C-alpha cells in the first residue's frame, strides 16, 4: 500500500526504519516514530470507527490524549486491549489492530441503520420507553441495548504481562515536558532540587515538537534536545517519558502510569514489566499540562477528514503526514492560520480559511493573505458532505448569535477540514487537586484560579498561550529566585484575539432537520440533545452531562465538555461564569487494572501465614483451612476415607487414645507490668487479681456494647507477668484493642503488651493417654494431677527442649499444650509423633477440634457469636463477675434489650433421627406451620456428627432457649421440615470427669 499522504521530508519520524502493521486485516507500512494514527493517515485511512448510537463513520480527529474516537482493539488473544486510542499507540513492528463495535466491518456496519431512528434516539429516550409490557424490558429491550453497548472486547485469557509499582519523593514534580515544564525542570534542577519530570509522550518537547519556533536562537526541537541533555546530566533529576500523570490526590500525592513495553514489538516484551504505576509525594508540583484544542460545532461536523487544526499541524510537522490535499480551515482564532501556512509550505492546497470573526488582521492572517490563501471572514461551515470522508463543505456568511442563518451558501470541495474553536487549558490535574477554576471571558476558557495544594500551574495549562510567557512562568515556578535573571529570547508569531463561537446556526433551529451538530463525538451527543435537556428542565451542567451523556466517554469529554457548556450558556442565556464546569475526575486517561493492582496478586494479595510445622502437615496429606491469614490443617484424610471417616477417626483417637493438634496459630500476647492484673481485670469479664502464679484462667472479652469479642486462656508467670492467648484470627485485633485502652483510656496503668504469637510453637496433645505420652518425653516433669492440676502450667524440659507446658483443654480430654520456641516447633512435633507411636497418636485438624469442643458445648467466637451475643446469651453467666464494679462491657448488660430474658441463648439440639446432621446456619422455628414470613426462633451455629456419641449434635442460639430444654423446635427446609429437641449444650462427659485422663 502506498503511503499516499506522506510529506516529502521532515518530521520526527525515521524514514529509514519501515514498520509493518495490520489494521482491519489490511497490511500497511509506517515509519519508526509514527503513531498508529499518523501511520493510518499517511496511508490515507481516515475511517477508523463508528459512533456509539448511530454508527456514523468516524475518523481521527486529534493527535493525542484528547482524541474523542479512533479507538481500536489492539492485538488479539491474551494480549488484546480494548478501546486504545490510535493517537496514543506508538507504532511497532507487527502491530495488529481493528475497529471496535462494528459489524461486520467498519466500512459496512449494519448498525448504521440506527441512524434512521435518530429522531427517536434523543437524549434520555430510554427513560421514556421500553416500559410496556413490563416483562419485555429484561427479556427483549435490555439484551438488545447491552449487545449494542460497549466498544472493544476484554481478553478472554489471563494477562501474560506483569506490572509493578514504585514510590518516589520529589522536591519538585513537573507534569508535562512542553516548553513551560522543561524550563521549570531546568530551573529547579539547576537550583539543586530533586526533580521528577513526567511526560506522556514518547519524547519530551510537547508543543515544540509540532510547532516551529526559535528559542535562544535555536530551532525549537534543538532547544528541546539541549534542555533534555542538560536535565539528563543532573544527578537528582529523573525524566519519565511515556508516563501519564493520571491522578492528583490530597497532600500532594500523585499517581502516574509509565508504559515500559507497549511501544515494543510483542516478541520483545516477554519477561519485562509492561507498565509501572508511580506514586509520588511531592513538596511542590508544577502543572505544565498544556491545552487541548476545541472542535467547532457545526452541522455534520463528525465526518472522517474533519480534524482539529492543531492536530493537523502536528501530523504535518511532527509525523510528516499530510492528512489531506485540499484543505479547508475553519476557525475562530489565529492559530489555524499557522497550520495553513505550515501545510502550504509542505505542499498542500489550502482551499480556504473560513473565519467566523468579522476581522482577522493579525500577523498570521496577514501572512496567510500574503501567501495567497483565500480568507473568508464572518463565514462559517453550515453543512458538510461525504459518507466515509468529507468531500465538500457549505459555507455562508453568518450573523453571530443568530439561531438561524439567512444568507446564501456555496459549496467548496475538499478532503480535509481543519477546525479550531480555540484552546482549553488542561486543568484536569489542577481540578483533581481541589483547585478552583474560574472562567476567563477574555481567553474564553476555564483557567486555574485558587490553588489548594502546594503547586504552580504554568504555560498553556494556566491559560498562557504565547511561548515567551510560558517560558517565563516555567522559570518562575522552577526557581522563583533566579527566574527573570535570564531572559529567554523567543521568535514566534503574535496571535490576535480569538472570539468564542459555540455553535454555528443552521437553516432551521437546532434539532430540526436531519443535520446533527455534534458536541460529544464519542457518545453521539448533539447540540439538539443539549437543547432537549434544557427544555425538559435539566439546566445544571451536571444534569445536562448526565442526561445527554456528554463527557461520559472514554475521553471523558476533553474536547466536548467546554462546547457543551458554551451551548448550554447560550440556551439559558447566561454568561459562562454562571454555568460552572462539571467535575474533573481521575484518571486523566484510562489506566489498566493490572497496572493498578501491580504485584499485589495471588499469594501477594494477602500474606499467608503458616506455622513452623506446616511442611509436616503438607507432607502428611493435610487439607488446609484459611483462618484469617493462617493456613491451618483442616483434617488429615487417609487414602479411601471420606471427610466424615477422617473426622471420626481423628475424634475417636482423641477420646480413646491421644491426638495431636498444631495450635501454634493461637494468638499469644505477653503482658507485663505492675498493673497487669488490674488491667486484665478491666478487660475480661471475670476476676483476675487473685489468680495464682503458675495458674491459668479462661476469660471472655466484650466490647463496650457488652457483645463478646474474643476469648482465650491467660497464664500467670509472675506477679507482674501474664501470657494471654487469643483466637487465631483475632490476635492482631485483640492486641490493638489492649493497646488502645492502655494508651488512650488508662495511661496511668503500667502495662506493656508484646505480640509473641510467632515466638512460640504450640503443640497440643489431647486424650486419655496424653499424660503417658508427655511423661515419656518429659521424664523429669512432675505430671501428677495433684501437683500439675488442670488450668496450671509448668516450665521444664520436654524432648530435650526447654518448654512451657500448659494443662488446659478445649476437647474435654486430658490435654497438654507444649510450647517451644517457634523454630523448634517441628522438632518437638516430630518428637511427640515418635513418642506417640506406641499410643497410635493421631494428628487432628481444626474440623475435629470443632467437633470435640462442640461435644463439650464449648463456644467458638465467630461461630456461636456474631457480634450480637452477650456472655449471658452463651449461658456463660458463670464467667461474668458480679463483684467487679466495672469491666469493659458491663454497663451495657443492663440495657433494656440486652437484659431481656427471651434473647437468643445457647442450647444444644438433638435431631429426631440420629444420623441427620443439620446444616450450619439453618434457621429454627417454634411453629412449623406459620406462613411466610415465618417467625424465626434462632439458628444452628454448629452442627456435626459425633462419633463418640454415635449421633449428630448441634449447638444453636434460640430465643429464650435456656428455659426450653426438652421442647421441640423445627428446621424448615425446602420440601421438608426437620424436628429437633432442645437439650443442654454439653453433650459429652457432662460431669467433666475425663479431664484427668488415664493415670
Amino acid at each position: 500500500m502506498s503511503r499516499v499522504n506522506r510529506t516529502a521530508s521532515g518530521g520526527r519520524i525515521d524514514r529509514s526504519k519501515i514498520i509493518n502493521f495490520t489494521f482491519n486485516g489490511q497490511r500497511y507500512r509506517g515509519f519508526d516514530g509514527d503513531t498508529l494514527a499518523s501511520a493510518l493517515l499517511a496511508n490515507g485511512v481516515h475511517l477508523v470507527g463508528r459512533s456509539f448510537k448511530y454508527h456514523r463513520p468516524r475518523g481521527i480527529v486529534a493527535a493525542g490524549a484528547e482524541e474523542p474516537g479512533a479507538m481500536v482493539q489492539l492485538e488479539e488473544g491474551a494480549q488484546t486491549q480494548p478501546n486504545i486510542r490510535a493517537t496514543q499507540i506508538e507504532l511497532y513492528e507487527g502491530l495488529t489492530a481493528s475497529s471496535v463495535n462494528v459489524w461486520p466491518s467498519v466500512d459496512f456496519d449494519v448498525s448504521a441503520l440506527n441512524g434512521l431512528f435518530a429522531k427517536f434516539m434523543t437524549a434520555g429516550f430510554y427513560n421514556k420507553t421500553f416500559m410496556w409490557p413490563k416483562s419485555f424490558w429484561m427479556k427483549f429491550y435490555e439484551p438488545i441495548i447491552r449487545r449494542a453497548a460497549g466498544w472493544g472486547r476484554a481478553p478472554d485469557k489471563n494477562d501474560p504481562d506483569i506490572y509493578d509499582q514504585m514510590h518516589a519523593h520529589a522536591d519538585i514534580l513537573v507534569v508535562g515536558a512542553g516548553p513551560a515544564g522543561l524550563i521549570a525542570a531546568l530551573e529547579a534542577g539547576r537550583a539543586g532540587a530533586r526533580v521528577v519530570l513526567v511526560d506522556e509522550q514518547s519524547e519530551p518537547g510537547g508543543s515544540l515538537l509540532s510547532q516551529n519556533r526559535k528559542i535562544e536562537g535555536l530551532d525549537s526541537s534543538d532547544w528541546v534536545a539541549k534542555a533534555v541533555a542538560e536535565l539528563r546530566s543532573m544527578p537528582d533529576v529523573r525524566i519519565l517519558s511515556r508516563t501519564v500523570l493520571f491522578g492528583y490526590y490530597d497532600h500532594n500525592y500523585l499517581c502516574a502510569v509509565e508504559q515500559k513495553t507497549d511501544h515494543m514489538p510483542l516478541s520483545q516484551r516477554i519477561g519485562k514489566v509492561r507498565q509501572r504505576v508511580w506514586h509520588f509525594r511531592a513538596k511542590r508540583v508544577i502543572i505544565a499540562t498544556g491545552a487541548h484544542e476545541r472542535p467547532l460545532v457545526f452541522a455534520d461536523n463528525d465526518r472522517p477528514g474533519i480534524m482539529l487544526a492543531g492536530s493537523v499541524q502536528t501530523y504535518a510537522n511532527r509525523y510528516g503526514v499530510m492528512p489531506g490535499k485540499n484543505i479547508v480551515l475553519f476557525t475562530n482564532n489565529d492559530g489555524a492560520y499557522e497550520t495553513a501556512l505550515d501545510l502550504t509550505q509542505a505542499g498542500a492546497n489550502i482551499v480556504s480559511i473560513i473565519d467566523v470573526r468579522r476581522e482577522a488582521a493579525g500577523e498570521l492572517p496577514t501572512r496567510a493573505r500574503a501567501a495567497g490563501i483565500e480568507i473568508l471572514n464572518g463565514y462559517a461551515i453550515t453543512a458538510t458532505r461525504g459518507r466515509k470522508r468529507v468531500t465538500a463543505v457549505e459555507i455562508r456568511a453568518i450573523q453571530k448569535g443568530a439561531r438561524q442563518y439567512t444568507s446564501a451558501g456555496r459549496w467548496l470541495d475538499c478532503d480535509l477540514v481543519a477546525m479550531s474553536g480555540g484552546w482549553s487549558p488542561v486543568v484536569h490535574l489542577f481540578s483533581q487537586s481541589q483547585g478552583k477554576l474560574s472562567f476567563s471571558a477574555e481567553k474564553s476558557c476555564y483557567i486555574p484560579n485558587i490553588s489548594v495544594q502546594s503547586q504552580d500551574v504554568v504555560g498553556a495549562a494556566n491559560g498562557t498561550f504565547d511561548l515567551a510567557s510560558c517560558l517565563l512562568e516555567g522559570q518562575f515556578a522552577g526557581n522563583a529566585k533566579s527566574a527573570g535573571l535570564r531572559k529567554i529570547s523567543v521568535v514566534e508569531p503574535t496571535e490576535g484575539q480569538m472570539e468564542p463561537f459555540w455553535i454555528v446556526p443552521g437553516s432551521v433551529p437546532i434539532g430540526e432537520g436531519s443535520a446533527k451538530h455534534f458536541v460529544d463525538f464519542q457518545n453521539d451527543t448533539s447540540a439538539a440533545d443539549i437543547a432537549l435537556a434544557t427544555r425538559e428542565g435539566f439546566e445544571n451542567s451536571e444534569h445536562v452531562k448526565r442526561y445527554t451523556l456528554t463527557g461520559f466517554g472514554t475521553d471523558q469529554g476533553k474536547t466536548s465538555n467546554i462546547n457543551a457548556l458554551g451551548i448550554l450558556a447560550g440556551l439559558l442565556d447566561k454568561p459562562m461564569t454562571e454555568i460552572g464546569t462539571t467535575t474533573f475526575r481521575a484518571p486523566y486517561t484510562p489506566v489498566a487494572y493490572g497496572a493498578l493492582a501491580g504485584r499485589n496478586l495471588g499469594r501477594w494479595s494477602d500474606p499467608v501465614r503458616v506455622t513452623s510445622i506446616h511442611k509436616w502437615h503438607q507432607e502428611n496429606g493435610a487439607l488446609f483451612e484459611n483462618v484469617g491469614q493462617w493456613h491451618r490443617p483442616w483434617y488429615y484424610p487417609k487414602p479411601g476415607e471420606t471427610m466424615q471417616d477422617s473426622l471420626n477417626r481423628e475424634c475417636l483417637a482423641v477420646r480413646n487414645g491421644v491426638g495431636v493438634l498444631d495450635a501454634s496459630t493461637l494468638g499469644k500476647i505477653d503482658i507485663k507490668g505492675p498493673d497487669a492484673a488490674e488491667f486484665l481485670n478491666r478487660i475480661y469479664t471475670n476476676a483476675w487479681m487473685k489468680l495464682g502464679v503458675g495458674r491459668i484462667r479462661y476469660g471472655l472479652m466484650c466490647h463496650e456494647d457488652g457483645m463478646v469479642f474474643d476469648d482465650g486462656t491467660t497464664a500467670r508467670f509472675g506477679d507482674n507477668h501474664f501470657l494471654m492467648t487469643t483466637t487465631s484470627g483475632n490476635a492482631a485485633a485483640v492486641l490493638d484493642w489492649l493497646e488502645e485502652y492502655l494508651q488512650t483510656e488508662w495511661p496511668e496503668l503500667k502495662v506493656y503488651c508484646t505480640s509473641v504469637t510467632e515466638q512460640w510453637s504450640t503443640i497440643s496433645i489431647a486424650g486419655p493417654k496424653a499424660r503417658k505420652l508427655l511423661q515419656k518425653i518429659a521424664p523429669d516433669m512432675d505430671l501428677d494431677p495433684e501437683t500439675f492440676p488442670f488450668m496450671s502450667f509448668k516450665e521444664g524440659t520436654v524432648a530435650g527442649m526447654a518448654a512451657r507446658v500448659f494443662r488446659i483443654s478445649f476437647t474435654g480430654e486430658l490435654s497438654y499444650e507444649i510450647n517451644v520456641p517457634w523454630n523448634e516447633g517441628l522438632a518437638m512435633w516430630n518428637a511427640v509423633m515418635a513418642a506417640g507411636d506406641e499410643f497410635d497418636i493421631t494428628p487432628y485438624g481444626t474440623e475435629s477440634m470443632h467437633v470435640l469442643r462442640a461435644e463439650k458445648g464449648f463456644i467458638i467466637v465467630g461461630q456461636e457469636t456474631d457480634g450480637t451475643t452477650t456472655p449471658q446469651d452463651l449461658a456463660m453467666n458463670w464467667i461474668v463477675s458480679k463483684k467487679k464494679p466495672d469491666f469493659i462491657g458491663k454497663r451495657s448488660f443492663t440495657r433494656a434489650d440486652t437484659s431481656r430474658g427471651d434473647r437468643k441463648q445457647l442450647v444444644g439440639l438433638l435431631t429426631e433421627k440420629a444420623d441427620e446432621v443439620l446444616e450450619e446456619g439453618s434457621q429454627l422455628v417454634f411453629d412449623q406451620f406459620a406462613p411466610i414470613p415465618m417467625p424465626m426462633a434462632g439458628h444452628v451455629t454448629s452442627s456435626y456428627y459425633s462419633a463418640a456419641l454415635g449421633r449428630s449434635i448441634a449447638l444453636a442460639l434460640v430465643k429464650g432457649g435456656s428455659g426450653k430444654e426438652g421442647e421441640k423446635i423445627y428446621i424448615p427446609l425446602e420440601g421438608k421440615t426437620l424436628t429437633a429437641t432442645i437439650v443442654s449444650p454439653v453433650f459429652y462427659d457432662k460431669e467433666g470427669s475425663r479431664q484427668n485422663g488415664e493415670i
Partner: protein
Amino acid sequence: MLLIECPWCGKRHETEFQYGGEAHIARPEHPEELTDQQWADFLFMKTNTKGVFRERWNHSNGCRRWFNAIRHTVSHEILAVYKMGDEPPKIEAGEADK
C-alpha cells in the same frame, strides 16, 4: 493517601496508620452511675463534624503509638497533631475554613 505526621516518627503515608475516630470521648469513670441514655451517648453518639475535627490515629505500622490530630474533614488538611493526654492546640476555625 494522606500524609500524616506522627508526633514520634514524623511524616508518613496514611497506610502506616489506623484511624481511631473522634477524639476526646473519655470512657466514663463510673459507668454504673450513668443512665442508659448517657451510656448510649458515650457508646455510640458522634459529633461527626464537617470542618475542623479532632480525631485519633494510631501509628499501627510504625511506633504503634496513639495520638490526636486536628484535621479538616472537607479539605483533609491536617492542622495539628498532639500526643494523647495533651491539650488540643487552639485552631482558629476561620483560618482553617478558608
